[in-house]
Structures are given as structure tokens and as C-alpha cells.
């Protein structure tokens, strides 16, 4: 059964359309990441689910009940702000017991629930501390505990790691996720960090300019992107603009700038159609000889950057187009190319995705990031 369901939700702010006809259904206990660039409407989406904003059109269901017009306090959807919004004038205990106290439970129950939840996030000993005395990670745990104690069924996380430093972020991701999963909470987590989304989510929703671009598991999103935007936003790729000039049952040949031709397996595009070819950087290899059955293009290495366990090369082809290639450094046999070396760039036709040429131009699709 779906816990949260949005049907055709639209929201405008004056002339700006923040969300356009969003349809989304999230299962009970599911961890969903909403991924998108700044201004995509991510926060608006969360605020609408929380009841802090009302949509202009469309319906919202929580636990099967329509909640349009229901105030935030009756939705059991706890919103966690980027800086956690722990009440600065209350200590940890008072913050965590806020929900139970507001709901006027009897004092015995308030005490039990609060201490239980505090133990769960391992902050029982800091119950008298004030928020400004806690580290970022602790504050996040208090915010989570506060939500759980308030009887949250749905957790809305707005860039939950945005206020933390980079190293801490990676550790806390898995910690937060396992705490949440233990509680069986339905979670909607908004972020612009694709790595974070792929790492923690059961399902990823790519949002762009108020529209859902693609929904799928992290693997689906990465391995089978449905649009140029999805491919460049998650993982990134090389893009070539070209025209189909030959097509048969085994594939097509596409001519790109400078008269170079690239063979692809895709057969859905017609001859003469303008298309975009996309190849992931790790699918491009460099070598000194041509590889059989591959596309082989001649180029000169213009830049080489060491990125942890791999090297990222930028190669300028004969037609002045640059190609990036990420090559894993494996023991022994991997050869390192120097700047100025002439190399052969190879990639297999099966790794080439072919998209229709976008109406607004290729750069617009990639630069929105």
C-alpha cells in the first residue's frame, strides 16, 4: 500500500511554476530520494507533503486519506530542516519530548517514550545539553529522535547533510539510513548530491524544473537513464551532437562534427534525424591500437587528472571535440598516457546511447546542473 501519494500536484509562485503535475506514489517504509538541481522544486514538494504549503492543483494522500487542507500537525509527517531547527531555548530532553508534551500524553508515558527514543539514538547522557553544545551529527540525531517521539510515520529530510562537513557527511549517511530503516519510517529525502542519493535511496526520483524526469532504483537510474539530463546529472557522460546517415537491422551510423562517424546499436532513429550520442566516461578506453568491433577515433591527450583509484583523461579528437575517459588503475598492466601523446579512443557501439536532439539545444540540457 502506498503511504504517500501525489496526484497531479501543481504549485505556482506568481509566474513561476514550481511543480507541474507531479504524480508519485511512495510505499510504506520506503526510502525515496528526490534528486535535482537547485530550483527544481524539491523543497516545494516536501513542504506540500508536510502541509506547510497547499498545492494549487492536485491531491495528496497520506496513508490512503486525502490530506489537502489538513494542517501540518495532523499529518504525522515530520519535516527535518537542513540545520535541524532544534529549538534553541530548550535542552535535548525538552526538544525530544516536544511532540508528546504537545499531544498531552500523561507524564509517565512522556518520560518513557522520550528516554527510550534518546537511548535509541545513543544520546541518553546528553539529555540536559542545549542544541548549541552538540556537534552537527548529534544535533541530527536529536532531530531524528524528536521526530520519532512525535509519532512520525513519514520523515521529510531537506538536504539533511547540507550543514555538515564533507567527511562527516559520508559516515552519517549510512548511520541515519539504518536508524530510519530500523524504525520502518517512510522517508522522503531531498538532495542535490547524486552520490548521496544513489547511496542511500531505495528509489530515486529525478526532479527537474518542477517535473519528474525519471523514477527508478539507483541501478536503473545509473544504468538506464531516460534522458540526456538524467544521464549528465547522475554520473555524467560525453555527449556528441550528430546526424543519422545510415541505418540497418544491426544498428546505425551517425556522423558527428568534422565528418567522423560513430557506429551505434540503436535502430530507432530515422536517417537524416538529428541526434545526441552519449557515452559514460568509464566506457571510453584509450590505447595505441584500434580495437575490433569498436568505434576508434584518433586524438591527442590534453589533460590527465588523478582521481583516487582512477585517472581521468581529456582527449581532443581530430574534429576539435573533447572526450573524457576514466580509466581504472589496475595493478601492473595499466599504462599511463602523458599530455601531448597521440592515442586511439575506443568505445563499443553497445555502450552508446542515442537520444533525440533536444528542442532547446544540447547545452541547455547539460548546463542546467
Amino acid at each position, binding site marked *: 500500500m502506498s503511504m504517500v501519494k501525489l496526484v497531479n500536484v501543481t504549485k505556482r509562485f506568481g509566474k513561476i511554476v514550481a511543480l507541474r503535475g507531479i504524480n508519485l506514489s511512495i510505499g510504506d517504509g520506503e526510502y525515496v530520494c528526490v534528486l535535482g538541481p537547485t530550483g527544481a522544486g524539491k523543497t516545494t514538494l516536501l513542504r506540500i507533503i508536510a502541509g506547510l504549503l497547499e498545492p494549487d492543483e492536485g491531491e495528496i494522500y497520506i496513508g490512503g486519506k486525502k490530506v489537502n487542507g489538513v*494542517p501540518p500537525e495532523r499529518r504525522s509527517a515530520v519535516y527535518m530542516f537542513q540545520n535541524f*531547527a532544534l529549538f534553541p531555548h530548550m535542552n535535548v530532553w525538552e526538544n525530544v519530548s516536544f511532540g508528546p508534551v504537545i499531544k498531552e500524553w500523561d507524564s509517565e508515558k512522556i518520560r518513557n517514550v522520550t528516554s527510550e527514543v534518546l537511548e535509541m539514538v545513543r544520546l541518553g547522557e546528553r539529555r540536559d545539553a542545549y542544541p548549541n553544545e552538540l556537534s552537527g551529527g548529534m544535533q541530527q540525531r536529536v532531530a531524528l529522535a524528536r521526530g520519532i517521539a*512525535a509519532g512520525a510515520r513519514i520523515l521529510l529530510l531537506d538536504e539533511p547533510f547540507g550543514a555538515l562537513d564533507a567527511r562527516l557527511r559520508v559516515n552519517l549517511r549510512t548511520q541515519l539510513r539504518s536508524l530510519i530503516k530500523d524504525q520502518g519510517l517512510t522517508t522522503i529525502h531531498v538532495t542535490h548530491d547524486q552520490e548521496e542519493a544513489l547511496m542511500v535511496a531505495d528509489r530515486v526520483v529525478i526532479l527537474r524544473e518542477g517535473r519528474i524526469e525519471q523514477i527508478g532504483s539507483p541501478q536503473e537510474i545509473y544504468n538506464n537513464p531516460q534522458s540526456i539530463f538524467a544521464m549528465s546529472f547522475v554520473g555524467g557522460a560525453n555527449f556528441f551532437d550528430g546526424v543519422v546517415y545510415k541505418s540497418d537491422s544491426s544498428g546505425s551510423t551517425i556522423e558527428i562534427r568534422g565528418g567522423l562517424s560513430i557506429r551505434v546499436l540503436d535502430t530507432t532513429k530515422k536517417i537524416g534525424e538529428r541526434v545526441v550520442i552519449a557515452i559514460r566516461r568509464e566506457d571510453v578506453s584509450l590505447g595505441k591500437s584500434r580495437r575490433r568491433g569498436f568505434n576508434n577515433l584518433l586524438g591527442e591527450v590534453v589533460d590527465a587528472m588523478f582521481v583516487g583509484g582512477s585517472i581521468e583523461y581529456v582527449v581532443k579528437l581530430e574534429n576539435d571535440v573533447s572526450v573524457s575517459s576514466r580509466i581504472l588503475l589496475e595493478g601492473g598492466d595499466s599504462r599511463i598516457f602523458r599530455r601531448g601523446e597521440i592515442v586511439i579512443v575506443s568505445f563499443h557501439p553497445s555502450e552508446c546511447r542515442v537520444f533525440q536532439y533536444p528542442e532547446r539545444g544540447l547545452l541547455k540540457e547539460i548546463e542546467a546542473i
Partner: protein
Amino acid sequence: MAMELRMADFSSKLVVLCSLIAFIIFVILPTFYLISYVFLRWDEVWYEVFANPIIGDENWKQIIKVLLFSFRLSLSTVAFDLIFGIPLAYVLARKKFPGKSLLEDLVTLPLVIPTSGFGFATLITWTTIAGLGGLLRLRSGLMSLNTMAPFINIPFVLFIVHIALTFPYVVRTLETKIQSIDVTYEIASRTLGACSLTTFRNILFPLSLPGIFSGAVLAFARSLGETGATLIVSGVSATASIAIVRWASEFKLSTAAFMGSLLVLIAWVIILPAEIYVSRGRRGSGIPFSLPTNLVRKMLRLERFLSRNFSLIKDVVPLVIVVITVIIPIAVVLNSVILYWSADPYTGKVEGGVMYQLFGPSNYFGHLLRSTLTSIIVALISTYISTCIAIPISFIIERRWYGRIIRTMLKVPLIIPTSSLGLSVLLLWGSSGLNLVSSGIWMIILTHIVFSVPVIVESIIAAYEGSGIQMYEESARTLGATAYNAIETVSLPLIKGGIFTGFILSFTRSLGETGATFIVMGRDVTIPVLVVNMVEALAIPAALFTSTYLIILSLVMLSIIRIFTRG
């Protein structure tokens, strides 16, 4: 559930409506009634001001004369404030030195001391033998009330009092503004090779222009509307606001009302553009013209020279001004009370001593006790009612689209001369208007509410905007708190400091107000008015004692404010 929700919606609308009604009746109506009074009774005004059968348009000539004098005084005061206030504000905002908070308190002091007491202190200091005259071994005071300051043709003592009373507005406003400007801009400019004056001219000055502007507007309005101290030191010259008090007490109501509405209009003409300018200034302000290169080069050379050789002057001169205008008068009053305690030290007469005047036949001590009671009752009740109006109004200002309009309207009672305000309240509630309240303590309370609400609102809004309340409230809502719960458990505790500060500020202001109180008080005398009465009755030792009493009272207030604003 739907029923319940509708109830909640309804009650929140009811709260907003009630607050707005109270706000309009108690604050807005008195502010604007004066203008409509002039329109409604134009015949009377015309007759009295322009076409009196006996004196013709003599009253109109008086109005013009008084207005011109007031403007000359206010403009010179503001110019002086800016020249010496800007460096002082810079030092307070950017430097750390021992005694800094003491200096800040000293600059702020004239805001808290009831102005009639302060005016009296200045009067004693400059014009009597007990003050600077005695210190310099002269036989009389250093000067008389009519000694003119050079160039501007304004009585010197009057000028000094106005500087002391307006200086804090320029310095404190600008100090806050400079503190909000990132110090890295200055550092960048200095590391790029600009000297400190050049950095100021190119970086800090353009960025703090809105602050300079709003400080100047506040100081100008304050000087234009000042009554308490001016009544005491003005001598034969009359400013616009004391002219209103005089005319109102002579029952020349139409002339006073006409002049009062002129002042209200002038205040409007000043703040509206200032409001627009300052709100635009947030988007970045620059100087819209460029200077010729050779002039710039000369300026740079001059600035380098001045920065190197005269930087001490800019630190020391403002300090000297604070000492002369604030510390010396207070010290002189305290000293004189001791000198005059049992008898006049120069003639030896017991009748000229503080004790005789307080407990002798004129029984000023009894007056003092009664006026203390009046003052405290007025201050407590008016501040309490104002706080009750100000809290919901602050929330409305922050949350509703019409908040900006309300906030702009709230600036008006702060900058129109209080004597116009008092006149307006008298005409609105008194026998010639609605006839609901007669002159006396209740009318004083009604008047004080008008300027207390804006004081408290400003203080609450300052606390509100610094605390990210919106987010905390939303967070509370998603945790299960209703809108009312969220305000009660989260918002109010968060802005508690702002409410207390506003309460104390308004209490202090009410305690020290003279101009408006004079017009509406009837037979109920407050302490600052008592000082003026004593001076007019030439009961100098009694006035000395009362001023000391006021100064000590306000020092206590100031320390309470400091405790709250620190915490």
C-alpha cells in the same frame, strides 16, 4: 475535524481583526486625526491663522518664523552629528578596547534620561555659577541662554542640548549598520593598497549609506520634535514643537492644530522617501556618479596624508563631544545637589537649599511623590496595553502582505513631534472631539500608547528577524503542534528578550516624555513636567533634586536594558 478546523481558522482571523482594530483606534487614529481636524474646521483655522480681524495674519507669520528657526536648528544639529558621529560609530563597531561598553552606555544615556532633567542639567552647566562658570573661577555662568553659536545663529545651549539628544540616533544606527557589513571588504581594500580613509570613502561609506541616512532622519525628527529640554533652555527663541505647547496652553487650538499638522506632513515627506531609499539600499547602493581622475588622485593623496597623521583626532574629538555634552552636565547636577543640600552656597540663605524647598512651605517633596506615582502608573498601564497590542501586530507585520504598510505607518508616531501628537489626542478624545476622556491621567496613558506601540514593535521585530522563527514554528507544526501551540511554546519564548527590551524601552520613554504630556495632562503632573514647572517657578534647588532623581532612575533603567539585551 473540518468543523474544528473552521473554528481554528475563524479564531485566528478574529485575533488578527481585533489586533488591527485596537491598533487603528489607539495608534493610527490619533496620529492622523490632527490633519483631518484642520480640514474639518478649516473655517476656524482660516479665521484664526490668516484672517484675524485684529491681528490679521500675525499667527501665520509666527508659524513661518518658528518653522524656519526649527529647521535651521535641526539641520545644523544633524550636520554636526554626522561629522562626528560617523567616526565614533566606526570605532564602536570595529574596534575592541577597554571601556567600550561604558562608552556605548554614555552615548545611549541621553536616550534614556528624561529630556527635561537633561535639559536642566545642561542649563545649569553652561549658564550658572554652579556649572562651568564656577569651575573657571568666573563670577557668573560661562554664557547666557541667548549667547549665539557662531555661523548658524542659534543659541549655543540649545544647540548643545540638541546635539546630545540626537547624537545617539546617528551613532547607534550607524554602528549596527557597520557591524552588519562584512569586515573582509575592508581588509581586501587595505591589502589592495588603499589607506584607511580611502577604504572608508570607497567601501564602507557607500555600503553604510542607508544606515547613515536613516540615522540622520531619526536625528532630524528627534530634534524637530524635542520638547522637554527645549522648553527649559530655549529662552526667548521658540521651536515649532514648543510653540505648539504654548499655543495649546493659550487655547489657540486652531493655530496649534494647523502648525501640528504641518509638522506631521513634513515628517511624512521625510520618512516616505527615506523608507523607499533604505529598502532599495538593501539591494546594493553605490554612488551614481564618478569623479574626474585628477581630482581622485588629489583626494587619494590627501586621504593618505590624513590617515597617516591625523588618525588620532578622529578618535579623540567625538570622545570630547560626548564628555562635554553628556558627562559634564550630569556631573554638575550631581555636584550641585550636594552643594545646595542645606543652603545656597553663595548667599548662605536656607531658603535657597534643597531641603527647605522640598520640605518647606512650597512642599515640593509632596509634589514629587505624587508625580512619581502618576508617572509610574502611566508608564505601567500604557506600556502594558501597548505590549498587548504590539505582540500580535508584530506577528501580523511579519506574516501578512500588508505588514510593510503597517510598519511604515508605525514609523510616523516615532518621528512626529510629540507635542503634535499630544494635541491630536486631546482633540480626538477630548471635549472638542469624541468627548470620551478628559485631560488627566487617562489621556496621558492614551497618548503614551501611541508612541509606545512602535517602540515595542520595533524591538520585537528585531528579535523576530534574528531568530529564524518561521522555521522553528514550521518544525513544531510538523511535530504535532497546532498554530496556537507553536506560537505559545516556540515563538514567544524565542522573542521573549525582544518583548522585555521593548517593554523597558517603552517604560523609560513614557517616564521621560514631556511634550505630549504637557498638553494632555490636565492636573496630573508627571516628573519631567514637574521639572519644567519648577524651573519656570525658579525653584532651582528643587529642580536640581528632581533632575538627579530622574537621572538615577534612568540609570537603573539603562542597566536593566543592558542585562536583557546581553542575555
